[in-house]
């Protein structure tokens, strides 16, 4: 119950902050759902931005967050006059009723997920694990881990607020609320050009897109950054077309919040910035946009720079070098080589053009575009887009062309600047593409009498999406209908959950666990260090790391008392598995002893319910014993 109250209070407080920002900037959006969505998104960004300073100030605890919510609620009370929902009372036609019913079913499935424990791998690895760790220490601290530690965490600050005040359940509900805010904003923007039923159909397509189904109810930030992107783009087009400085300020804030929540937000800030140069440049608006984006989005880059020596860790290692021993030349080389696994397509002009098609109909497995991609809608709608672009002045118009420009520039930067080619990373620009294609296609259909095949595009995309969403719901239905306990659900959904339970029961608060199993980070209550072979270099576990004395020194430097080993010490692994090889060396030389062989499960698909049984070895480290020191000829440095 408290979780529901907290999530609603957080949503209302976000609305309060957002409405206050809109008022201060004097940016007028249409009343109704668009203003609600925009205000909630901006408010969530404000709370995330404040969360950083609260964390730096060492006040990262429930009482401070309660104060933030209190201020937000007060602002909402002061701006309550801006909240109006009613806009015409015309009757709903049959299609609208059908679409609304389908949307309610889809949101009900999302609600089933929200009322179940978190189970997604990345969510357990860092989206929820980092806020939990920060709350345990009442401050934010730098986590020297590539991809899932030293990254912009603005959105995670909002997760921390919900976690501190209402526990995990509140975060789950907060995720759903932010997803609904995205849907509301898409609907509100679509209503500028489309009638109610086509706008609802677009919203439904978005909510049953595989990437949204996969990421919306989990800690993945793309659904949230999609909201920031949409707000930024719409405000930027308003700024250019209405010559409204306030809109430029809001666009800067939203683009900055995106940059503060994900490195890809840097691409977003550039893409939105180009909108300002698409008309006659208004330099005051450009300056306002850039200034607000820098204020809203720079905090995590400065933070990372201060702690690691580079603003984007570890991508800029070659330029800036690094402080401390958190990264090195070999780690950089291995990271680049291993991370390339998620970029299977060469970056050429031909693949730049063909990527959307390949990702839709024949994606290489590394794109993960089948089960977590963008669905078939844009592919099926292609003839309508081509038809409409032939008469772009009438059918698309300058505003949507600017929207298309921002989406295309983001896509180009994302594609050409090497990172990963995971298709779901494009979710932040997917609503933009949906709006452009949805509006252009509907207009072209009306003009030529192609509405029926156009409706078939929507019907097939929605029907398939609903079927996928229903299949996704089975896992959560089972939890609710069978009245599973939390531990039963975790055992089915989270790899190595039993190992986390063992660690919590057997490792004390004065100990420190070396944990190479990222999927269970969030479940660990005792102190631990994440030992990913690719993402960190403080304890080197790359395939070429073969020096046992170095390994022991690094374990000591991290003050580790225990170490988890997977696969087990007796498993048949090749020499490239440094963790197993070095751990065998530890045991053989008296530097560690096997404390427990923990049976566990490794989950391959939560939705399909597929898993394999396995074991994890828990070692107690005895690196300070004379035997270990003698065997390895270690000379201790004080």
């Amino acid at each position, binding site marked *: 119950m408290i979780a529901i109250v907290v999530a609603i209070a957080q949503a209302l407080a976000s609305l309060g902050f957002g409405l206050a920002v809109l008022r201060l900037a004097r940016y007028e959006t249409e009343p109704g759902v668009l203003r609600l969505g925009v205000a909630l998104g901006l408010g969530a960004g404000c709370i995330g931005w404040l969360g950083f300073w609260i964390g730096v100030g060492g006040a990262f605890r429930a009482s401070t967050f309660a104060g933030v919510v209190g201020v937000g609620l007060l602002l909402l009370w002061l701006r309550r006059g801006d909240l109006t929902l009613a806009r015409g009372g015309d009757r709903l036609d049959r299609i609208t009723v059908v679409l609304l019913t389908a949307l309610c079913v889809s949101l009900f499935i999302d609600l089933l997920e929200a009322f179940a424990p978190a189970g997604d791998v990345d969510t357990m690895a860092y989206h929820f694990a980092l806020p939990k760790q920060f709350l345990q220490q009442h401050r934010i601290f730098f986590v020297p881990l590539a991809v899932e530690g030293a990254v912009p965490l603005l959105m995670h600050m909002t997760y921390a607020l919900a976690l501190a005040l209402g526990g995990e359940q509140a975060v789950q509900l907060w995720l759903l609320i932010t997803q609904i805010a995205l849907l509301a904003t898409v609907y509100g923007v679509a209503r500028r050009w489309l009638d109610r039923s086509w706008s609802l159909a677009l919203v439904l397509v978005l909510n049953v897109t595989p990437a949204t189904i996969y990421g919306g109810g989990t800690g993945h930030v793309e659904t949230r950054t999609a909201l920031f992107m949409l707000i930024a783009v719409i405000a930027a087009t308003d700024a250019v077309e209405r010559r409204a400085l306030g809109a430029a300020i809001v666009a800067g804030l939203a683009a900055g919040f995106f940059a503060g929540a994900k490195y890809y937000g840097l691409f977003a800030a550039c893409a939105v910035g180009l909108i300002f140069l698409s008309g006659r440049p208004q330099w005051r608006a450009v300056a306002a946009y850039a200034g607000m984006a820098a204020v809203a989005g720079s905090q995590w880059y400065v933070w990372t720079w201060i702690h690691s020596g580079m603003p984007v860790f570890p991508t800029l290692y070659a330029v800036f070098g690094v402080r401390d021993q958190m990264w090195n030349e070999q780690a950089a080389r291995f990271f680049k080589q291993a991370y390339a696994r998620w970029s299977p397509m060469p970056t050429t002009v031909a693949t730049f053009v063909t990527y959307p098609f390949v990702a839709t*109909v024949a994606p290489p497995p590394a794109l993960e575009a*089948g089960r977590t991609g963008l669905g078939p809608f844009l592919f*099926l709608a292609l003839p309508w887009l081509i038809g409409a672009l032939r008469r772009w002045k009438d059918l698309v118009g300058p505003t949507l062309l600017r929207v298309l420009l921002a989406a295309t520039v983001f896509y180009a930067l994302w594609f050409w600047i090497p990172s990963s080619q995971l298709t779901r990373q494009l979710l932040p620009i997917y609503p933009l593409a949906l709006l452009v294609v949805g509006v252009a296609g509907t207009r072209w259909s009306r003009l*030529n*009498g192609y509405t029926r*095949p156009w409706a078939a595009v929507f019907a097939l995309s929605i029907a*398939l999406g609903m079927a996928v969403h229903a299949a996704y719901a089975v896992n959560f239905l089972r939890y609710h209908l069978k009245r599973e306990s939390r531990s039963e659900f975790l055992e089915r959904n989270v790899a190595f959950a039993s190992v986390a339970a063992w660690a919590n029961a057997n490792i004390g608060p004065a100990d420190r666990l070396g944990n190479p199993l990222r999927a269970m980070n969030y479940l660990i209550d005792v102190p631990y260090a994440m030992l990913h072979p690719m993402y960190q270099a403080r304890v080197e576990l790359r395939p070429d790391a073969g020096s046992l004395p170095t390994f022991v020194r690094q374990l000591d430097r991290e003050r580790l008392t225990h170490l988890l080993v997977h696969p087990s010490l007796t498993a048949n692994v090749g020499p490239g598995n440094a963790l197993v090889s070095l751990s065998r060396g530890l045991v053989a030389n008296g530097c560690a002893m096997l404390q427990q062989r923990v049976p566990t499960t490794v989950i391959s698909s939560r939705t399909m319910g597929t898993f394999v049984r396995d074991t994890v070895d828990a070692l107690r480290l005895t690196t300070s014993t004379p035997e270990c020191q003698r065997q390895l000829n270690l000379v201790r440095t004080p």
Partner: protein
Amino acid sequence: MSSERHGTARVLLFAWVALGFLAYMWQFRGMFAAALRMFGR
């Protein structure tokens, strides 16, 4: 455009939607086969 050409274009658009949808679904054939096998057991 004449109504005849509009009619042809409509048919072509329907055909594109149907074939495009099948082309999209083709990548999941393995998953469907596995699901059917599970159902059959």
